[in-house]
């Protein structure tokens, strides 16, 4: 008997969003109200059993609720006799997410590769001018690279949990793969903190430049100019594409951070069902953010001449600035800061 209840997971996901939202505000009262599992109403034994009917494990499974009883050992969690949602979790994690995540991440790699082969790098049309403008301060670059190196570490060690068994295990053999995975797990747990600090500082530092402005619509209509040579829609410090990356990091990264902390302290914030839900959310949004960041890495390195300098030295070529961030370049030259 297999239970597929994607709908039910969606419902839970929505509930979890509410929980995440409340958590973000920092209300600890809400924690106690995290999704209540295994309510008494669906306990089949609450119905008169008459002792002589076949107790309905099947009913219980249909209701997708667990069976709660009592134990005489200290571990009260052991009082849950059967938790059928574990099977939904398994199908979600080892089935749906594993499959869709692979399409998403490897699909994104294929997409940028194809794009590079067809379009090549976006060159500075007029060539480098030789003069530079300061684009990012030392602090901005430090924070970017702290977050970036943390994210890459987290992404690789996270992907190892989902795909290592299929990709690395056959290469390394069980012992070496296990040793690596145990190390990767520890790394993942602790590198999470520089990542969280990074996105908080990033939020404070850059949020002002990332609200929609009047240049965005035109930028979208022209596809950011990356599809056609010589087309450069105007933009301020951050264009619409960069804003998408910024908000993805803030929103998806925020969900990943909150769910990740709840996974680090498995039963502090709720029951087993909460932990299961957090693992699902963590995986989904981590895979989405990984795909977004692959695109971001591409355009910041291979995809565009001159873009790398912005985060490497902090100084960009004046002509690059005029082509890709004309409004910001004009303001910067006029002595403005942004």
């Amino acid at each position, binding site marked *: 008997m297999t239970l597929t209840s994607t709908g039910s997971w969606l419902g839970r996901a929505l509930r979890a969003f509410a929980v995440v939202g409340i958590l973000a505000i920092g209300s600890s009262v809400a924690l106690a109200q995290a999704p209540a599992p295994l309510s008494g109403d669906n306990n089949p034994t609450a119905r008169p059993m008459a002792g002589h009917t076949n*107790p309905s*494990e099947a009913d219980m499974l249909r209701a997708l609720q667990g069976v*709660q*009883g009592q*134990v005489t050992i200290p571990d009260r969690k052991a*009082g849950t006799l*059967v938790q059928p949602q574990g099977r939904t979790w*398994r199908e979600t994690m080892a089935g749906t997410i594993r499959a869709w995540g692979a399409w998403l991440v490897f699909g994104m790699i294929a997409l940028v590769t194809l794009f590079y082969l067809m379009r090549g790098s976006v060159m500075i049309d007029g060539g480098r001018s030789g003069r530079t403008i300061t684009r990012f301060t030392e602090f901005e670059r430090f924070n970017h690279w702290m977050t970036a190196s943390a994210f890459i570490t987290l992404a690789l060690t996270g992907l190892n949990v989902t795909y*290592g068994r299929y990709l690395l295990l056959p290469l390394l053999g069980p012992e070496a793969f296990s040793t690596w995975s145990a190390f990767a797990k520890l790394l993942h747990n602790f590198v999470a903190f520089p990542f969280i600090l990074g996105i908080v500082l990033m939020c404070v530092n850059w949020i002002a430049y990332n609200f929609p402005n009047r240049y965005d619509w035109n930028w979208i209509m022209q596809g950011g100019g990356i599809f056609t040579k010589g087309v450069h829609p105007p933009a301020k410090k951050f264009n619409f594409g960069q804003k998408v990356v910024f908000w993805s990091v803030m929103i998806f990264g925020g969900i990943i951070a909150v769910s990740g902390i709840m996974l680090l302290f498995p039963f502090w914030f709720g029951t087993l069902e909460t932990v299961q839900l957090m*693992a699902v959310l963590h995986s989904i949004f981590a895979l989405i953010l990984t795909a977004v960041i692959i695109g971001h890495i591409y355009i910041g390195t291979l995809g565009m001449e001159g873009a790398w300098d912005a985060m490497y030295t902090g100084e960009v070529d004046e002509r690059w600035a005029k082509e890709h961030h004309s409004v910001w370049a004009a303001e910067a030259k006029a002595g403005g800061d942004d």
Partner: protein
Amino acid sequence: MARMKFLLDAERCIECNACVTACKNEHEVPWGINRRRVVTLNDGKPGERSISMACMHCTDAPCMAVCPVDCFYKTADGVVLHSKDLCIGCGYCFYACPFGAPQYPQAGNFGSRGKMDKCTFCNGGPEADNTPAEYAKYGRNRIAEGKLPLCAEMCATKALLGGDGDVIAGIYRERTATRGYGSGAWGWSTAYGQPPRS
């Protein structure tokens, strides 16, 4: 070849917890870890039932499917075992297991659960049969000695049956035919996919 299964007849379980104690003693299971437990439903109310629960050695085991390091394996008898050398203590098997069978020596914050421990159907682990190394990690390997799991073997009311699935399902069928009603065989359809009498 037998296909090993557990069957619990809730009509007979008297919550004596002898299966729990026998298991802990036989395998010298550390404090805080319970490979088997007795759960009482509706304690003190009409329709009270007790069910002894451990790893059911599922046909399509969720733990095996979700393990990131693939440390589980199934013996020719259908027993689900795992390697503590490979386990990284991530907790995924506990999240996926319908029966709450996987146990960990520590609380688990910052991924510090330690190596997972669970019922082995008294069948040890990947080490050579009944070596000190196997005993230290997984407990006694009674199956290798030609014996069945101790919990079921010493169950005073024979509520808990452990052994070849066809044989124990036959015993249960005979019982229910004689007394005229079943007791659910809790966990059976979740673990093995079909009711014990068909």
